[in-house]
């Protein structure tokens, strides 16, 4: 049709212009080096600001001074003195909270009776700021480490339960029917179909739960601990020693980054089928 018109008239009837593109976007893709670059720019800005006096020393410490404080802390052995008890509290608390959370979450996902009883209970426990319960835990478990383990365990438990039963609920039911139609037993269906299917969502639930664990760790250490990152930050804060305060906060940030890196590696290794 169009060609015929062209050959008949010999020229295009009106001015031709390309159709404007209006698609694309809404598809995030990984961009390398942006995050470190942004981080560096921020640090350099703060450094320049504090050195030139635009940012007063009472507002923000010099990043270089914070780095120096971190270095001194590492050299003097103070870093290990604070980091080791913190890591132990975090490790024990998270291990307890996550395993209980995943275990109970799977049970809620699989059994209607357990679901009926526990889902409202978990929903009631979830919004409680767990740190408010620390005095109670101190009475129950004592002032020492156990109350801190309990706090972190409890705080990571609730988000993990919710993430886990959501993950089990979202496993494709046709896959379960497929298993049944081939005569797989209940246990085989749970271990070979339900658990692997729920695993990706359980991992992302872990990410959130561990971040909450780090927050609770700090809070618990601020409320009563001699050593630990939280105690270190609290001391620095009450002396208004901004370098130390920021040094402590950066340790926590790095801890968070490490967790996210480790989970990212696990995802890469275990979920290569995606």
């Amino acid at each position, binding site marked *: 049709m169009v060609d015929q018109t062209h050959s008949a008239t010999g020229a295009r009837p009106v001015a031709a212009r390309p159709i404007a593109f209006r698609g694309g976007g809404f598809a995030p893709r990984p961009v390398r080096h942006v995050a470190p670059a942004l981080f560096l720019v921020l640090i350099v800005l703060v450094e320049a600001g504090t050195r030139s006096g635009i940012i007063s020393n009472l507002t923000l410490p010099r990043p270089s001074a914070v780095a120096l404080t971190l270095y001194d802390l590492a050299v003097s052995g103070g870093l290990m003195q604070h980091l080791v008890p913190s890591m132990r509290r975090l490790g024990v608390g998270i291990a307890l909270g996550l395993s209980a959370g995943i275990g109970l979450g799977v049970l809620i996902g699989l059994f209607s009776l357990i679901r009926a009883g526990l889902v409202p209970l978990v929903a009631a426990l979830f919004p409680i700021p767990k740190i408010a319960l620390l005095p109670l835990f101190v009475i129950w478990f004592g002032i020492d480490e156990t109350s801190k383990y309990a706090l972190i365990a409890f705080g990571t438990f609730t988000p993990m339960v919710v993430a886990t039963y959501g993950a089990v609920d979202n496993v*494709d039911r046709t896959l379960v029917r*497929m298993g049944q139609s081939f005569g797989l037993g209940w246990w085989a269906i749970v271990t070979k179909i339900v658990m692997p299917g729920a695993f990706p969502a359980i991992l992302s639930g872990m990410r959130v739960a561990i971040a909450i664990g780090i927050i609770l760790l700090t809070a618990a250490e601020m409320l009563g601990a001699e050593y630990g990152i939280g105690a270190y930050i609290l001391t620095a804060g009450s002396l208004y020693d901004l370098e130390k305060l920021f040094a402590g906060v950066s340790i926590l940030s790095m801890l968070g980054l490490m967790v996210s890196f480790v989970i990212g590696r696990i995802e890469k290794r275990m979920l290569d*089928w995606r």
Partner: protein
Amino acid sequence: MQLELVSVGHAYGPVEVMADISLTVPTGRIVCLVGPSGCGKSTLLRILGGLERPDRGAVLQLGQPPAGCLNPLTYVFQHFALLPWRTVEGNIRLVLEHHHLAAAERREIIDDVLARTRLTDFRAAWPRQLSGGMRQRVALARALAVRPAVMLLDEPLSALDSQTRELLMDDLVALWTRAPFTAVYVTHNLDEAVRLGHRIVVLSRRPGRIRAMLDIDIPLAERAGAAGELAARQAELWSMMRAEAEAADRELSDG
């Protein structure tokens, strides 16, 4: 082994989906179930496979499944139902793992079904890497691996484009010709029904009843060359179903 449905009826709550269906599935034949959407043909297949319990009537198995049969009633799903975290080989192994087989025998079965579905080169591939047609081939290989007495195919080609569907129909014909299997094949596609069915059962709209039965005597392998005859059969089927399909289309669905 033969399957027999004796006046099966089923309802979902107040909605009666099928009533009084009696049907025999003879050994070594493919029975196609066709009918308008919502006539309960997939429900009927689930009842046949023991995945759903009928409210009335019974499903009977006549005779013993042949020796070596691991899963007498074996399903093939419309959306393949492959485990995305297992490779092609792993998906087939899944259905053999809970049977007590020697490792060598297991390997032999897997090699055999992969060869029959021409998937040998893809045994290490992930499902996400495969086209829809290949995924359904994997599902067919998995079904063949358990040496079923009766295959229950639930719209196995409906999720595929028409060229792939053609190819897979040829595959199914070739598989059946080499080793005739018993099958119940649910579809809404009349072309598939006349190409693959020895007997075509037409269901009415809800509540589904058997409206007509049509036997086609042309051997499966020769049907590609009998287009005229098949077209006539397909037209005949369509004339039976048209009014029903139209009425079903205008029905409100209650869930």
